[in-house]
């Protein structure tokens, strides 16, 4: 029997100690009509060799593609040491550090993680992580509404990732919070300032600012933050953490900086894995720390005055505050954060800046190569970080199908989320893409476009 060590003799001894003859007797409090051991679907057990064979077959079926797609998840270099250390049993198979004395490893690591994220975002504090980026935005919205007490409206630019907007809607809609769209300017692909200015009324709790936005474009963050703050509204920044190795930290946007910063942590050493597990990060100003959801690790001293780490401000959380907690969230994404902390330590500020710059430069090179093809043009005129929207003179769905067949994921088509962006493709080239791969992509694209 898998993962059950008992010999028959041991089972007999244990039953004897309990004073029953058969294991089934241990279930005698369950009404007999509820016992149903019949499983119709679950197949017989596989041994380890069998499951390895089956898993490998499935994984191999998915093969290997050259990714020119980002749209919220990015294929970056991951140092080998990241997952070798993160999957050490002492990290991998430990639980939430409730017994602090027996969890100093995880706790110190989380404190270091919080420190790294606060520094990267330029904020005062960071929590120990949330599930992933989109639901982190929902938590930030709830947090802003708590902090602003009676204001219930949030301004959500359309240039935020559509799945982030959908997720936020799912999570906050039952609490009387309204989410108002702000359009993007059609030339720049960035927030429409005049519409924003009109919408920024007294009832607005927060403005969400993506940087870079979903289209890869860089928003005028300084002006946006100052405008929002002037109208008494908080700023929630949605950022890519790797970009912060070279882009201005949200804590320094405008006069006073963003108030809450969230984002998807996947680009810090987490594999793509069809969408998860990733982790969401959340940082904020000191003033808002008690409104923050999720675990928080503090440094303190032990009975001998020696430095140690522990969960702190737990009274905000569901296991103490129950129905009045800041969120129902129970854990963080510990293992993912372990990997991210290793990633940031192994890369260092220089290594991360280099990866960010290379991603930027590669995307620029890719865009040059692709727009050299007739019928392919850049959709917006803003500077970008490492993604760009291309408008292509052909049916994008057909194009994707054809290029996928060549082992290349061409990008993310935008039309299903943005009607007006027909035949537009969001492309990305991280530091891992080579010029040869870009040439290959360009070659196939040219062939397809020229067929029309």
């Amino acid at each position: 029997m898998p993962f059950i060590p008992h010999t028959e003799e041991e089972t007999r001894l244990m039953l004897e100690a309990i004073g029953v003859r058969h294991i089934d007797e241990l279930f005698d409090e369950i009404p007999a009509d509820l016992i149903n051991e019949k499983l119709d679907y679950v197949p017989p057990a596989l041994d380890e060799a069998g499951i390895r064979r089956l898993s490998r077959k499935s994984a191999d079926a998915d093969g290997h593609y050259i990714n020119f797609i980002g749209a919220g998840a990015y294929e970056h270099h991951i140092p080998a040491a990241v997952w070798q250390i993160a999957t050490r049993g002492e990290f991998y198979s430990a639980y939430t550090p409730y017994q602090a004395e027996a969890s100093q490893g995880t706790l110190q690591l989380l404190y270091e993680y919080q420190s790294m994220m606060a520094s990267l975002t330029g904020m005062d504090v960071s929590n120990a992580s949330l599930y992933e980026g989109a639901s982190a935005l929902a938590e930030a919205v709830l947090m802003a509404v708590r902090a602003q007490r009676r204001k219930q409206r949030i301004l959500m630019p359309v240039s935020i990732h559509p799945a982030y907007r959908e997720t936020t809607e799912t999570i906050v809609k039952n609490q009387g919070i309204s989410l108002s769209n702000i359009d993007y300017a059609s030339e720049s692909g960035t927030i429409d300032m005049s519409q924003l200015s009109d919408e920024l009324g007294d009832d607005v709790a927060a403005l969400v600012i993506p940087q870079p936005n979903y289209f890869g474009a860089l928003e005028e963050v300084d002006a946006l933050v100052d405008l929002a703050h002037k109208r008494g509204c908080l700023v929630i920044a949605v950022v890519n953490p790797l970009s912060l190795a070279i882009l201005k930290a949200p804590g320094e946007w405008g006069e006073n900086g963003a108030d809450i910063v969230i984002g998807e942590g996947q680009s810090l050493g987490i594999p793509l894995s069809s969408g998860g597990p990733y982790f969401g990060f959340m940082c904020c100003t000191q003033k808002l720390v008690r409104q923050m959801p999720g675990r928080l690790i503090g440094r303190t001293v032990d009975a001998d005055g020696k430095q140690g780490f522990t969960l702190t401000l737990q009274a905000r959380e569901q296991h103490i505050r129950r129905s009045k907690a800041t969120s129902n969230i129970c854990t963080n994404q510990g293992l993912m954060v372990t990997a991210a902390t290793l990633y940031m330590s192994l890369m260092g500020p220089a290594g991360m800046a280099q990866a960010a710059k290379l991603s930027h430069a590669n995307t620029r090179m890719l865009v040059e190569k692709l727009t050299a093809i007739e019928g392919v043009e850049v959709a917006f005129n803003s500077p970008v970080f490492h993604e760009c929207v291309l408008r292509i003179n052909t049916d994008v769905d057909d194009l994707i199908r054809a290029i996928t067949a060549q082992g290349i994921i061409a990008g993310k088509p935008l039309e299903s989320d943005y009607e007006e962006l027909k035949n537009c493709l969001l492309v990305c080239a991280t530091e891992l893409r080579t010029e040869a791969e870009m040439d290959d992509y360009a070659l196939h694209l040219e062939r397809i476009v020229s067929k029309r």
Partner: protein
Amino acid sequence: MTELIFEQSTAGRINNAQFLAGTPAIDDIPESLLRKKRPGLPEVSEMQAVRHYTRLSQLNFSIDTQFYPLGSCTMKHNPRICNEAAMYDGFSGRHPSAPDSTGQGVLSCLYDLQEILKDISGMSEVSLAPMAGAQGEFTGIAMIRAYHEARNDDAREEILVPDAAHGTNPATAVMCGYKVREIPTLDNGDVDIDALREAIGPQTAGLMLTNPSTLGVFETQITEIAELVHGAGGLLYYDGANMNAILGKVKPGEMGFDVIHLNLHKTFSTPHGGGGPGAGPVGVNERLVPFLPVPKIVESSGEYTLLDKKDCPQSIGRLSCFMGNTGILLRAWVYARLLGHDGMKRVADYATLNANYMKAKLEQAGFEMAYKTRRATHEFILTLKKEKAETGVTAMDFAKRLLDKGYHAPTTYFPLLVPECFLIEPTESESLEELDGFIKAMEEIQQEAIEQTEMVKSAPHSLPVRRLDDVRAARQLDVVWQEEQT
């Protein structure tokens, strides 16, 4: 004490192997959008980083190194093959927004997992989208809300929760815009059904129940409770935290539950990872199917597709940017296939055998059980009320002393209903020797509490740190390292 990674940093040190080649320019981004000051990340060599985090790992207790009988958390063995398989290139390298045609392998595994979970839970459909138990709860209650709203049944504004429930239950109900009403528990651990009858009415949207309950006993009146809730037009929510106790034995759908969540990081052995990631799939019966979250994995003549909100207009919507914690779901799938048909039932059998054995032995040793007349499920509660009264040694002191003896402490002070309690869950993967070792340690502490009270009260003595000053941690909040401090 291990120095912080920042204290080992030297300005200008570069880990060259991770500094990728190239001389990229960023001259097309306006200065005003660029960072002026480098982030305060550590500048260390690869060896320094590897050594530092390896050493930190050694300061942890974990399943791989210690017996970890944390009640309600199901800390069972995490087979390594589950991790190996989830990390295969074809799985770990696939982009979530790549066409479905490039993900038939991973989708077939997830679909198989969905079907397995349907089978063991007795529900009509399962969604793998929720990323944790708490998110599964949110999903379930949001679906209950959507169901009532779709029927224009708008007066239902209350969710009922037993007072013994986990804190996520009431917190979730509030996130979904409901008021919470708590239902008291009887002395034998069952729900006070008279109080329930009194509380239930046209304002009731639903009842959230864990069965076996957080008190380590099977709720025997479940059929009657289901009838009461349904009779009033409410729905019944199953918190699957304790599914390990009944896996392959009892199906929540057959107990009358309309919607359930399962914690794959408990019952299906995915790693706890120092506090996550988890996975909290939900199962529903027929009437809630239209409200399931997206994306939804469907199969048609051997081809797997993801459906989104446009395909499922009544869906409560999306819970994350992509499709949940796929890598965790894959680990659970591997585990489920390793257990197979017969293995499922064995889980509940041996988890229950281990718990009842420990309960019997600890009772013999003179410890008081909170629910003596009841069978243990996969876990049980003992109360150290008597020990506290006689020696002043509390459950917390016992817990800390257990650490000295190389055992992770059971869950302490939860559920809140039982004073000075330990919630003990051994799981099926522990051997008789390990259980006996723990029981012996408890007996020793019992003696020590009398003979060396102060020593027990100041435990632990052999861990990297002694008891920590939680009050200072909260009053003088230090959650981020500052360079100026050193």
